């Protein structure tokens, strides 16, 4: 792949989904494009690019994106933040809903990858609200359709569950040989579906969330796409709703519209 070809493809992907590959990623992108070319049997980049763009179903673009996104994730990632969510944020949300008869919590795991984050949140909410008159639901979305399939299956290897506390492992997973299957009672309350965070029409439908987790996703975006997504998040939150970014990420270079809240275990952004 020449640098010109790389730039053409890079800009195309950027316009479609906001992920930005700089020149240093040429090799990374090239390897994956070559694999895609082999699998559909075209032998020039030009032919491939044309194929992808004129495939009105968008299937090849999706396949390529599935190959290009970084999907690394595991259960109970960034423990301190999750503690903050469990011990400080959830009680605050419930308190805020004190005058409502049926308390309903809505959570969004944006960029959920293979689902570990969403299931982790489900475990936490279940633990924290067990026995209370509270209902909850989790929306878990990603751009990559392959990871969503895996997420729905709910089947994980040892590595993914290494940070899950023993009690929870026993309570919420079913051991199947070397694998661990999420119990169906958790799975029922999570909706997995595809959503591109830069898809304005569909982002607009996301409303009334109490909390959004968007951890380790925006790092792949460039400045202006980050701001755009942050604005959609702002509109998707209820007044007072919270956003969790990855612990090395910050809104400070994205947009100043969220309030900063200091909790014992983390700093969280609030609408």
């Amino acid at each position, binding site marked *: 792949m020449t640098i010109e070809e790389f730039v053409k493809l890079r800009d195309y992907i950027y316009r479609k989904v906001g992920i930005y590959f700089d020149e240093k990623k040429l090799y990374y992108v090239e390897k994956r494009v070559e694999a895609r070319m082999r699998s559909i049997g075209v032998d020039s980049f030009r032919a491939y690019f044309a194929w992808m763009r004129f495939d009105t179903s968008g299937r090849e673009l999706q396949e390529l994106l599935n190959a290009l996104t970084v999907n690394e994730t595991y259960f109970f990632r960034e423990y301190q933040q999750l503690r903050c969510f469990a011990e400080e944020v959830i009680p605050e949300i419930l308190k805020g809903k004190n005058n409502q008869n049926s308390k309903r919590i809505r959570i969004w795991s944006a960029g959920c990858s293979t689902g570990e984050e969403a299931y982790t949140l489900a475990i936490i909410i279940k633990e924290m609200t067990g026995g209370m008159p509270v209902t909850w639901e989790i929306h878990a979305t990603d751009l990559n359709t392959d990871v969503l399939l895996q997420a729905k299956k709910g089947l994980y290897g040892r590595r993914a569950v290494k940070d899950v506390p023993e009690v929870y492992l026993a309570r919420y997973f079913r051991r199947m040989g070397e694998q661990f299957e999420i119990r169906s009672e958790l799975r029922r309350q999570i909706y997995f579906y595809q959503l591109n965070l830069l898809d*304005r029409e569909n982002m*607009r439908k996301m409303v009334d969330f109490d909390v959004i987790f968007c951890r380790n996703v925006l790092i792949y975006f460039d*400045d*202006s796409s980050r*701001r*755009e997504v942050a*604005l959609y998040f*702002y*509109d998707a939150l209820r007044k007072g709703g919270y956003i969790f970014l990855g612990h090395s990420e910050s809104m400070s270079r994205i*947009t*100043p*519209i969220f309030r900063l809240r200091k909790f014992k275990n983390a700093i969280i952004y609030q609408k």
Partner: protein
Amino acid sequence: MKTSKVKKLMEILSTHPEERERRYAAMELSDFPREDVVEHLVNRLVEEKSRAVQEAIVSTLITIGTEAVVRRCAELLRSEDAYLRNSAIEVLQLLQHTSLGVVKELLQDPDPDVRLFAVNVLGELKVKEAVELLCRVVEEDEDVNVVAAAVEYLGEMGLRGDDRETVRKAAERFSDPFLEYAVEVALRKMEV
């Protein structure tokens, strides 16, 4: 059809009581990179009281990214409102190549603050012409702060022999401890 939709969006952006509606109207206008839309967006950016709506307008201006955006944002550099000034810089920085012409003019502005903004935009431009322009600033500008900013950017770009000379000479032109510090740091960065 299209025109009436644009009209409606502009109307919502300026009068709708719900912030959320104004925000989405602003974002949807990014599909219409027309001069009158840009004009309206910038006017609303100035008038709008909600920061979140203003941020949506900035986001749309960046997406539209035409000459008209650059020209209108350059005018905002003289605004009394610091948020507007700094948003304008951000837009100009992100619109890199489109901004170059306007930025060149701004380098000749009598107001040193405006020249400083121009240098801030140039510093983010990754083109050869930006380096040449920054060198000229370092050699000719009368304001220490403007020169120091140009020196900082040249240091970050990591440069050839004669650029080092240019930077070194700047310290002699003014005798100021801040500029001396800036030159020292830039030369050190250029070494590696």
